[in-house]
C-alpha cells in the first residue's frame, strides 16, 4: 500500500553503500594521487549527471546546455582563485599590478565591476549557486511559460551554450578568452596544487556528491518527483489537475543547473583552471551521454556513467586519440537503441532479478518461501 515509506529501498541502499565504499575507501586506498585526481575530475561530471536525471530522466526536459551552468559555477570559483593569485606582490611586474594577468595583457587598467564581489570567499560560494540558478530561472521562465518544450528547448539550450562560448572567447579582457582562467594557486590562503590538498579536495568533493545524491533522492521521493514523471507523460493532464506545469519545469531546470554549477566549481579546484572548452556544445552533449550511459532514470547510474565513460575516454584517447570521438558517438547510439535506461537498466533487468532469485532460493531453504520483489533502480 505505502510505496515510498523508506528513504532508500533495499536495492537503492545497496547501491548507495557500494558507491560510498568505492569512493570513500577503495579508490583512495588503491590509486596514486595522480589517478585519484583524475577520478575527482570525472566525478565533477557526476554532479551534472544527477541534475540531468531529475531534469531529463524524470521531468523529460532535455537540456543540451548543461555545460553553461557547469562553466558558470567553475568560472565563479576561478574568478575568486584568480583574484587571490593576483595580489599586488604577485603581479608587480604588470603595468597595472593587482589585476589578473590576462586583463593586463588586454590593456585593462581597472578590475571590472562584476569581478569585485569575487574578492570575498562567502560571496563566491553564494554566487556559485545563485548565478547559475538565476540564469536557469530566466531561461526557464522565458521558455516554459511560453510552452517551448521538447526538441525546441534542447536546441535553444544548445544555442545558449554556443553563445556563451563565443561570449567568453570574445571578451578576452574580462574572461581570459580561449585560454580561460589559469594559474590558480590558493583557496583562502591554502595551496590547492599540492598532493595533500588534492587528496583533501577529493574527499570534500565526494562528501558534496553524496549530499547532492541525497538531495536529489529527496526531491524524487516527494510529490514533486511524481509530478515530474507525470509531466513527462501527460503534460495536459497535470495542467488540468491544477498545477502550473511551467513552474515545475523551471524548478527542475534550476535544480539541474545548481547541481551542475557545484560540479563546475569543484572542477576548477581539482584541475586548477577553467576554460570555455568546458562550456560549449561538445562538453554539454558529452555530459548528456554520461547520463544516458549510466541510466537517465537512476541517480546512482549517473555517477557510474560519469566515472566509466570518462575512464574509457582517458584510456582510449591516450592510445587512439582520433578514434575516441567516434567511439563516444557509437556508444551513445548503442545505448539509445539497445539500452534506453543505460547501465542501471541493464542492472535492473538482468542482474538484480538473478540476485533476487539467488537470495530467494537461499531464503526458501529453511522453509519460508516468500520471494523478494523490490524492483526499484539500484545503480
Amino acid at each position, binding site marked *: *500500500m*505505502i*510505496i515510498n515509506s523508506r528513504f532508500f529501498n533495499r536495492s537503492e541502499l545497496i547501491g548507495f553503500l557500494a558507491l560510498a565504499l568505492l569512493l570513500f575507501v577503495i579508490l583512495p586506498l588503491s590509486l596514486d594521487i595522480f589517478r585519484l585526481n583524475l577520478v575527482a575530475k570525472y566525478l565533477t561530471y557526476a554532479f551534472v549527471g544527477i541534475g540531468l536525471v531529475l531534469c531529463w530522466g524524470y521531468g523529460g526536459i532535455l537540456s543540451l546546455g548543461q555545460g553553461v551552468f557547469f562553466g558558470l559555477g567553475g568560472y565563479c570559483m576561478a574568478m575568486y582563485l584568480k583574484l587571490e593569485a593576483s595580489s599586488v606582490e604577485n603581479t608587480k611586474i604588470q603595468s597595472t599590478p593587482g589585476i589578473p594577468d590576462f586583463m593586463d595583457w588586454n590593456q585593462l587598467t581597472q578590475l571590472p565591476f562584476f569581478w569585485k564581489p569575487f574578492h570575498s570567499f562567502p560571496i563566491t560560494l553564494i554566487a556559485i549557486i545563485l548565478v547559475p540558478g538565476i540564469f536557469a530561472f530566466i531561461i526557464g521562465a522565458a521558455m516554459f511559460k511560453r510552452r517551448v518544450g521538447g526538441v525546441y528547448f534542447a536546441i535553444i539550450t544548445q544555442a545558449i551554450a554556443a553563445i556563451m562560448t563565443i561570449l567568453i572567447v570574445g571578451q578576452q579582457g574580462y574572461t581570459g578568452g580561449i585560454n580561460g582562467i589559469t594559474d590558480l594557486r590558493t583557496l583562502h590562503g591554502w595551496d590547492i596544487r599540492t598532493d595533500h590538498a588534492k587528496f583533501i579536495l577529493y574527499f570534500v568533493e565526494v562528501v558534496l556528491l553524496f549530499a547532492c545524491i541525497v538531495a536529489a533522492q529527496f*526531491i524524487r521521493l*516527494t*510529490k*514533486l518527483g*511524481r*509530478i515530474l*514523471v*507525470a509531466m*513527462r*507523460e*501527460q503534460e*495536459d*493532464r*497535470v*495542467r*488540468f*489537475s*491544477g*498545477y*502550473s*506545469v511551467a*513552474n*515545475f519545469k523551471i*524548478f527542475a531546470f534550476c535544480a539541474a543547473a545548481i547541481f551542475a554549477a557545484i560540479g563546475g566549481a569543484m572542477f576548477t579546484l581539482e584541475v586548477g583552471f577553467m576554460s570555455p572548452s568546458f562550456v560549449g556544445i561538445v562538453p554539454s552533449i558529452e555530459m548528456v551521454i554520461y547520463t544516458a550511459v549510466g541510466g537517465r532514470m537512476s541517480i546512482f547510474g549517473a555517477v557510474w556513467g560519469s566515472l566509466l565513460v570518462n575512464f574509457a575516454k582517458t584510456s582510449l584517447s591516450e592510445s587512439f586519440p582520433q578514434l575516441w570521438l567516434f567511439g563516444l558517438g557509437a556508444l551513445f547510439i548503442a545505448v539509445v537503441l539497445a539500452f534506453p535506461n543505460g547501465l542501471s537498466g541493464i542492472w535492473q533487468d538482468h542482474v538484480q532479478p538473478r540476485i533476487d532469485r539467488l537470495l530467494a532460493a537461499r531464503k526458501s531453504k529453511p522453509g519460508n518461501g516468500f520471494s523478494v520483489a523490490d524492483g526499484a533502480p539500484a545503480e
Partner: protein
Amino acid sequence: MLIGHQPKDFLLAVSGLTVSFDGFKAVNDLSFYVEDNEIRVIIGPNGAGKTTVLDLICGKTKTTSGSIQFRGQELTRLRENEIVQAGVGRKFQTPSVFEDLTVFENLEISFPRGRTVFGSLTFQRDAAVKQRVEEVAEMIFLKDRLDTYADQLSHGQKQWLEIGMLLIQDPDLLMLDEPVAGMSVSERAKTAELLNRIIKGRSVLVIEHDMKFVEDIAHKVTVLHQGQILSEGTMEHVKNDPKVIEVYLGH
C-alpha cells in the same frame, strides 16, 4: 463587480463565444447557460465544435471573442490551472492518465492540496489523503489495484481512473468528453452507474453520442451544428425538433 443586468445566477454562463482558426469559425457566437446541479449533454454531428467548446471553457484553446462566466468569474482571462482551481474539471476523450505511476499516485496527484512547487515538496501523504484516495478508488472499481501501474490497466479502467482523478478534485463543474466511447458493453453499464453516482451535487457538461446514455442522464440537451446551437431543451423536445432530425438524428 456586477455590471449591467444579471438575470439569474447561473453556474456557467457562456455568451457570444467565438473561436476562429485561420478564419474558420469552429464555434460561432455561442451562448448557453448551465445551472447548479444540472446535467447538460451536448450532442451534434462530427465537427460541430463540441470538443472545442469544452477546450474553450477549460482554457486549452483561447477564445477569439465572447465571455465564459463561472460563478461570476471570467474564465477566458485565467490560465488552465487557475480554471481548475476555480472548480472546473475536465476529462479528455482519450484516457490521459500517468502510466508510469500507480493508481494511488495518479489519484494522489489530483488531490487538491500542495499544488505549488514548494507545496508539493512538503506534501505529506497523511491519513486524509489516503482515506480520500481509497474512497475514490472504491467508487471507480479500482480499490484492489491501488499499487498497479496505470499502464497495466485496460482501456475502460483507464477511463475510470481519469474520472476518479477528476472526482478527487471535487469540481463544481465536471466536463466529460465521450466518457463511454470505446468501452465494452459491461464497462459501459458500470460507467453509467458510476456517472449517475458522481453527478450528484455538481453540474456536469457531457459530450456523448450514445443516445440511450444521453436519455438516461440528461436534464437538458444542447444540439450543436457548425459551431452554433441548433436546438436546446429536454431530450423529448430535441428529439422531435425537425431541424435536429434533419442534420443529426435522422441519419
